[in-house]
């Protein structure tokens, strides 16, 4: 067989291979830890203990995961249409503008459960509009979406800096951020959920936007696999020629998909602002948009995979913070290296171990790889 991606049973494809990649990533990360003179096993224990050991850790892990679910969905939905949206970072940042405007306007008059839906619409709307421009340029002018979305990240950052040191900043303040939102602009915490299962949470930013993230994951599944629009999207993603044949408008499908992608990205802004800091501060996205690419890759662009991958990255963020605290030799930068390794092995080198796994399957269970059938045909 000449095809590099021959069949594997689904459980191996979606379970075994990502797991093996993760093991390799942690193995190499372990070597790095060894290099700085610490015990990799103790480091791993601290990392996992820090992320899942106590209620407090779990709450933080899920808080980070919330952010990554949004950005992961944003990247994944575009991938289904064959588009690589690198602009999730900027779209999320601009989503913060939607949150800021809504909360600053309504937090004194409306309760949170009315401000929240408005903020959802505003953040999603601004994110979608920010994705609209590169989408239009791609669909109508052929400007490559990867290039334009990267550039739009910089433009978004500049605009937000301007707004946060200028119009959105309270007059007397020195800090580049909005004023604190009042009660109407603060999302309730979900820490009680963890306490329900016996965990103890002192204070953690885990909030209701987690539920919104899960709802959006479900929404994405429905959109991609159950609607006519999703069908057109996937057709275009797999084969633009087939889409043309089927009478699907290229312009429409690219623009709408990118706007949905931008909307998912924009909603990410809710979690750290209304959910945690209660203001919109400079650089609140902090690279979560790029982590979203890794999350989407690892989660195979499927909502279930994305939620799981987001929790994994949430664990790395939370456990990594603990690790940097417990082991002074391992600095914050080391954590970034470990995260980078996970991205490298689970994302970029996704198919690295595939040939070996396939060879193993071919030896031990030829039927599962379809070799027996092929031999019979020949």
């Amino acid at each position: 067989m000449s095809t590099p991606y021959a069949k594997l049973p689904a459980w191996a494809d979606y379970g075994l291979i990502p797991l093996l990649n993760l093991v390799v990533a942690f193995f190499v990360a372990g070597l790095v830890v060894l290099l700085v003179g610490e015990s990799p096993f103790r480091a791993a224990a601290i990392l996992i203990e820090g992320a899942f050991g106590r209620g407090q850790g779990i709450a933080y892990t899920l808080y980070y995961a919330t952010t990554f679910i949004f950005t992961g969905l944003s990247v994944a939905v575009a991938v289904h249409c064959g588009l690589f949206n690198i602009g999730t970072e900027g779209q999320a940042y601009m989503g913060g503008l939607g949150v800021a405007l809504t909360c600053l306007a309504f937090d004194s008059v409306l309760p949170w459960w009315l401000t929240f839906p408005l903020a959802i619409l505003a953040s999603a709307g601004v994110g979608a509009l920010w994705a609209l421009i590169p989408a239009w340029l791609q669909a109508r002018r052929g400007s490559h979406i990867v290039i334009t979305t990267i550039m739009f990240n910089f433009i978004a950052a500049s605009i937000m800096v301007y707004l946060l040191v200028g119009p959105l900043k309270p007059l007397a303040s020195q800090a580049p951020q909005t004023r604190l939102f009042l009660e109407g602009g603060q999302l309730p915490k979900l820490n009680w959920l963890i306490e329900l299962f016996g965990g103890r949470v002192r204070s953690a930013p885990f909030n209701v936007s987690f539920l919104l993230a899960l709802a959006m994951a479900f929404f994405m599944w429905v959109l991609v696999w159950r609607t006519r629009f999703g069908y057109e999207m996937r057709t275009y993603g797999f084969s633009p020629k087939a889409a043309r044949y089927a009478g699907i408008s290229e312009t429409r499908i690219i623009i709408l998909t990118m706007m949905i992608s931008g909307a998912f990205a924009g909603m990410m802004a809710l979690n750290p602002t209304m959910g945690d800091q209660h203001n919109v501060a400079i650089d609140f996205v902090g690279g979560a948009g790029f982590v979203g690419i890794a999350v989407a890759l690892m989660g195979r662009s499927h909502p279930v995979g994305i939620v799981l991958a987001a929790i994994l990255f949430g664990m790395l963020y939370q456990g990594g913070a603990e690790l940097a605290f417990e082991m002074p030799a391992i600095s914050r930068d080391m954590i970034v290296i470990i995260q980078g390794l996970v991205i490298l092995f689970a994302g970029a080198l996704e198919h690295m171990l595939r040939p070996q796994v396939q060879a193993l399957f071919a030896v031990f269970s030829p039927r599962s790889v379809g070799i027996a059938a092929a031999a019979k045909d020949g």
Partner: protein
Amino acid sequence: MAEAAIELIGINKSFGAVHANRDINLEVARGSIHGIVGENGAGKSTLMSILYGFYQADSGEIRVNGHVKAIRTSNEAIAAGIGMVHQHFMLVDNFTVLENVILGAENDPLLMKSIARARSELVRLEREYGLQVDPDAVVEDLPVGLQQRVEILKALYRGAEILILDEPTGVLTPAEADHLFRILRQLKEQGKTVVLITHKLREIMAITDTVSVMRQGTMVATRETAKTTVEELAELMVGRRVLLRVEKGEARPGAVKLAVSDLTVRDARGVTMVDRVSFEVRAGEIVGIAGVAGNGQSELIEAIAGIRAAVSGTVLLDGRPIDVTGAADPGDLRERGLAHVPEDRHHVGLVLAFEENENAILGYHDHKRYAKGVFLDIDAIREAAKEKIEKYDIRPPDCRLKTANFSGGNQQKIVLSREMEQDPGVLVVGQPTRGVDVGAIEFIHKRLIAMRDAGKAVVVVSVELDEIRSLSDRILVMFEGRVVGEREPEASEGELGLLMAGVERRQAVE
């Protein structure tokens, strides 16, 4: 006879179930021009790819100048003195001629020396073979004829003694082709060996010394060109196989359903692929469009089906025009009763990564039957897919199976069932049985005849002459973008073959 430059002995090559080369023996004399002819898919290109190291033969032996060579890569072929000029040029468009010539043959990390050597070598080649090209011209600015010359120079620069040309005149104007032939003769006089792959019999007669004919993966004959005729070669090429005759009654043509007039289509490079083509198709008849692949048939049906914009001309569907020069929407055409089975089912007609039932609605996904508001009606879709699987005997009968896992014949049935079951007034079918197993061919042919008998207008484009002859009520032959003749299906294979090969010849049919 001179010593053999190339000997191929017992070459076999299979791709899956397709036996592309079967026990091929071939001897090419040194210092000769040897033609290899055959229909599309006869295995010519596979054979040459084996010789040039792109593929490995499953069995057999290659001898170059009497020595057994194992050619596993194109570098080994080059080392053995074999050069190849591909049908689609392998040039870097924004490099100069000189840069293209040394590409892959730069021997130093710095280019200075290589360039200087190449420049003087080009001057020598120019003198010896009349291969004039400006070494500093950028390739993309050159006309195709000169680009091809650069390909030949590349091969000669690498010391090729044996030059393989794959369909070299396909992209050339007649004048450019004549010039190429002069160059080839000069190469021959200098003692080089030339292997010319083509399906144009005229060229074979004009320039080769010896000609070998391939058909369905086997080498059926080798003749001295001087002692053969175009008629004999055409017969050898097309073969005398038993026709897969389909039972069919008289056609009862009705009203004109599809009227094409003066349709002109250019490809992305601006080359005219369809040149003022006009024809009509009536209800209740099958019009077959024959021709060697690449003579504009694909572009013609794509333009009619609204996938490719035409430059000029009109197409009337049921008397109402289709906007072929503008944004004809394939979706609208479907609504108006024009169904299209595209030639390329892998990339156009199907999405291979989809489940079977998802492909069974491609293009019809907006129909009320399959939709519940903005949602897909999954149950209805699967139910409809199951019906078609039953009716068209698609195997395995599993509508949740990934389309890529169906065989070629069953994939084609998925497309056909989708398009036919919409009950279109006009059905345009490209290569109905390409890559389809024998059992399915018969089934597909019967279905097409049934469509005709139900009063539909059917257009079939195929490179399989047998298929065209057994299906069609009228046959149009396309050559170089034009319809060069219309014949009854009773016309002899030889006659159609000549038309397809562009040989102008009137037979006294009256």
